[in-house]
C-alpha cells in the first residue's frame, strides 16, 4: 500500500515572525523570572485571546471580565470605525462639491450663493459628525488596547489559583466557638 509523506516548509518570513514572537515572550518572561515557568502558557493564551490566560490560571471571574470587555470594546471599535468611515466619505463628498464651486468661479461660471452657503453648512455638519464618530472610535480603541495590555500584565503578575490553599468555605472549631470562613477571590 503506497504511503504519502508530507514535508512542511516554513517560509523565511514565517520563521522570522516566529523568532520575533518567541523573543518577545522570552523577554517578557525574563522580566518576571520568579513566575516565568508558571505563566508561560497562560501568557501565550492571554496574548492570543484576552482572558484565556486568567482562565487557564483558574481566575474565572477575571477571565470573564477581560474577555467581556475585550469583546465589547472590539465590537464597538469595529462598528464605530465603519460609522466613522461613512461620515468621512460624506464629508469628503461635500468638500469636493465645495471645491468645485471655487473652480467654476475661477473659470468664469456662475454659482448661486445659496449653493455656496448651503454646501458649506452641510460640509461643516458632516465634519462635526466625523469628529464625534472619531472620538467614539478612539474611545473604543483605547478601551480595547488598555484591556489587552492590563490583561497581559495581570497574567504575568498573577499566581495560578491554588484550590487547596484557598478554601472557599471552611468551618473551624476553636476555644471561642465555631468559626465559618468564606473566601472570595477576584
Amino acid at each position, binding site marked *: 500500500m503506497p504511503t504519502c509523506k508530507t514535508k512542511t516548509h516554513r517560509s523565511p518570513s514565517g520563521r522570522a515572525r516566529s523568532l520575533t514572537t518567541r523573543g518577545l515572550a522570552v523577554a517578557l518572561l525574563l522580566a518576571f523570572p520568579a513566575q516565568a515557568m508558571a505563566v508561560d502558557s497562560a501568557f501565550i493564551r492571554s496574548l492570543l485571546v484576552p482572558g484565556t490566560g486568567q482562565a487557564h490560571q483558574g481566575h474565572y471571574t477575571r477571565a470573564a471580565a477581560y474577555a467581556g470587555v475585550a469583546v465589547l470594546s472590539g465590537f464597538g471599535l469595529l462598528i464605530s470605525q465603519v460609522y466613522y*468611515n461613512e461620515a468621512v466619505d460624506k464629508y*469628503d463628498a461635500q*468638500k469636493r462639491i*465645495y471645491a468645485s464651486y471655487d473652480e467654476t468661479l475661477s473659470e468664469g461660471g*456662475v*454659482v448661486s450663493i445659496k449653493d455656496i452657503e448651503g454646501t458649506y453648512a452641510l460640509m461643516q455638519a458632516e*465634519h462635526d459628525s466625523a*469628529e464625534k464618530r472619531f472620538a467614539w472610535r478612539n474611545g473604543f*480603541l483605547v478601551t480595547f488596547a488598555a484591556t489587552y495590555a492590563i490583561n497581559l500584565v495581570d497574567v504575568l503578575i498573577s499566581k495560578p489559583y491554588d484550590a487547596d490553599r484557598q478554601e472557599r468555605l471552611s468551618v473551624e472549631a476553636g476555644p471561642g466557638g465555631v468559626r465559618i470562613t468564606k473566601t472570595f477571590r477576584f
Partner: protein
Amino acid sequence: MKRFIVILALVVTACARHDDVPPPLEVMTPPTPKNLVVETVDQLTYDLSWEIDDPAVVKEYRIYSEYGTSGPQLEGTTDTTTIQVISPVALSGLVFCVSAVTLENVESALTCGTSE
C-alpha cells in the same frame, strides 16, 4: 505608563482620515433684488421691474419663470432693472423670479412675483 499613554495617543491621532474644514470662499454676498413688479401687457407678454440696493456690484440680472413642476426656467438676462418677457405659454398666475449676479459671478437668492 506615561510612555504607553503617549504612544497610544500618537497611534490614535495618526489614524484620523478627516482634515479640517477648508476656509469659506472669499466672495461677497450679492444683493438680492426686491419689490419685483410683474405687469401683464397681453396674454404672453409681461413687463418686469425691480429694485436693488447696490447696483454697482451687479454684473447682470437673471430672469426665471416658473410653470408646471419643472422648476424655474431661465428666460433671459439683463443689466438693467426692467425687462419685457414673452412667455412661451399663456397662463394666468405665472410666477417670475429675478436674481442678481455680481462681478464675481456669484448669484443672489431669487425674488419672485406673480402675474395678475
